[in-house]
């Protein structure tokens, strides 16, 4: 019995060594494994962001008094806006939007300061270019918060009873887009790379005919699969660590929670993704098809249905239902809780359990579907 175990251990080690040889001798594999995650993370982190800086706006000030001047200064100093031009008549508004550079026009009514002091009320009209609805919304929100904070600073002077909501942006006080994207990218990259690499490497053996030799050997399906997958667990885990390091040092995203818990959850998610990859490889014997299924079947749903970009709550019910079938959704929730909120295991056990259950299900299906013969 002991010798059996020894032989099995040796077989397994041989298999892992072989798999590492494949990986390190294939530049393409290495690029996919390590180049793409880093590039994607940096791209998403720096480029794809819903923060807006220096949006060009126009101001049409019909009052030109000390309060409108001060509010205008506040708007500029917020950093979100850049005043591109000042308008002199309402007829110019249409024109500046047609030009397309100006995203928003801020209009102060005539006699602004006088009305404010006398009636306690004065109007600012905000006109936005809603052909980009998201940008328009965000700009309006920014502007609101600027005027609110001006009002707050003037509260004493104005002697006005007002209820000012004090908003605190918890967990991401600066509303950095990166905070949202990094967990999403991590979920996407890990599932993509893990599933893609395993499904390709297993189907490659089928295509090259080496699977036939492996099948004709005493190796059991479980040994073949675990031998093939083990190196990818290690490499994907290194990837996860790399992503966490980059997000910490480049994007200053803190890890508030337990690092070990975070890494453990990453490992679980990697295994979920690998088991999906194994499942894909049992469905096809072509590398091309395995790649297509991994890319189209995993990457797109991860981006669209995991709550990574579009909030799940806003989707039609059917799609919401689909979202609950997506492993990345749970992983993103877990990662956000641990990294940003510093939550412990007691807050993420449910998601963890779901991921673990999914993994077991995928593995069970794969073993059921694995063919011990060529047919």
């Amino acid at each position: 019995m002991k010798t059996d175990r020894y032989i099995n251990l040796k077989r397994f080690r041989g298999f892992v060594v072989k798999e590492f040889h494949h990986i390190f001798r294939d530049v393409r594999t290495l690029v996919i494994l390590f180049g793409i995650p880093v590039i994607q993370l940096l791209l998403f982190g720096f480029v794809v962001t819903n923060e807006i800086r220096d949006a060009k706006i126009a101001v049409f000030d019909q009052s030109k008094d000390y309060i409108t001047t001060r509010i205008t200064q506040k708007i500029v100093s917020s950093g979100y806006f850049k005043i591109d031009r000042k308008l002199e008549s309402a007829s110019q508004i249409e024109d500046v939007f047609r030009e397309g550079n100006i995203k928003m026009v801020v209009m102060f009514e005539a006699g602004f300061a006088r009305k404010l002091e006398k009636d306690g009320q004065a109007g600012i009209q905000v006109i936005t270019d809603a052909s980009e609805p998201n940008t328009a919304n965000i700009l309006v929100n920014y502007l609101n918060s600027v005027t609110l904070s001006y009002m707050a600073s003037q509260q004493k002077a104005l002697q006005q009873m007002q209820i000012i909501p004090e908003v605190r942006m918890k967990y991401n006080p600066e509303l950095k887009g990166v905070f949202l994207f990094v967990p999403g990218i991590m979920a996407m990259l890990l599932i993509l790379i893990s599933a893609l690499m395993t499904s390709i490497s297993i189907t490659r053996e089928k295509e090259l005919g080496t699977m036939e030799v492996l099948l004709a050997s005493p190796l059991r399906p479980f040994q073949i699969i675990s031998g093939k997958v083990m190196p990818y667990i290690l490499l994907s885990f290194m990837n996860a660590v790399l992503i966490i390091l980059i997000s910490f040092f480049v994007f200053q995203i803190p890890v508030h929670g337990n690092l070990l818990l975070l890494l453990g959850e990453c490992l679980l998610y990697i295994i979920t993704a690998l088991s999906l990859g194994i499942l894909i490889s049992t469905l096809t014997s072509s590398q091309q098809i395995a790649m297509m299924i991994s890319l189209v079947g995993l990457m797109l749903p991860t981006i669209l249905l995991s709550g990574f970009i579009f909030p799940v709550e806003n989707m039609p019910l059917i799609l919401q239902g689909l979202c609950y079938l997506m492993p990345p959704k749970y992983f993103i929730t877990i990662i956000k809780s641990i990294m940003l909120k510093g939550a412990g295991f007691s807050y993420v056990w449910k998601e963890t359990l779901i991921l673990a259950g999914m993994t077991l299900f995928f593995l069970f299906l794969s073993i059921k579907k694995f063919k011990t013969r060529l047919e």
Partner: protein
Amino acid sequence: MNSEIMVEARDLCKNYGTVTALDHVSFSVNKAELFGFIGPDGAGKTTLLRILATMLKPDTGTVRIGEYDAVNDYRKIRNMIGYMPGKFSLYQDLTVEENLQFFAGIFGSTIKDNYYLINDIYDQISPFKNRQAGKLSGGMKQKLALSCAMIHKPDLLLLDEPTTGVDAVSRKEFWEMLRKRKEDGITIIVSTPYMDEAGKCDRVALFQNSKILSTDTPENITANYGSVLFAVRTSNMYTLIHDLKYCPTVRSAHSFGQYIHYTDKEINATMSDIEYYLRGKGHSEIEIRQIDATVEDCFMRLMLND
């Protein structure tokens, strides 16, 4: 089961949709025998070897390997066979040595344990042991694949067209090596499309259209040819084959290299009868010899009768 028998196949049938790959095939192979399946491409040899290697299930019929049933006890069988598929199936991006190490490893063995089995081939390829398998020549690849298939000292070696695409010298070495392994007590089943390799086997099964035409030692197969065989050559080979085929007493006429092999329906037909006929057809420089039948002649004969 007779303890001297290694493989016993009974009434194997296998269809792929409407295509028949094996049609009621039965044979048995003795222990430490070098057994050849000889037949053209598409005859069903690969399917048969895959069934023996437990890679496919037969539709009907049974195979026993040693004391095991090839369908139910396939795990036991996979411990005792070495299988070399027809398609080159080593890791092209691993070196010669890494491939050997890997395949020894998955059988729980090492190169050192069974080095004697492969030393004569391995000596030849060891200068390239750090070369990736994909960059070896065809002959080297096959030698390496054979080494990998038997590095764990299997009881039964199944080789699917191991010499296809291999040069003449390497083929000869390959067969010498198989004979030595047979002396070590390994049962070897080889398939090949090359008729001239039949003589290297202890026994051969001639395979055609999913059926075995005949199973015997190569000597018996050629001895049972049953006709007098002539090799004929003239100055005009193009019309010769035509003229011989339409000779009123022809039994068979096939082109074999530079000669036409000819048999006559008349048992008493002589070389001068043929020469007389050919002169009448306008041939000159006529060369006729009576020869012993080769396995290929027998194969052609069996196909005709079929």
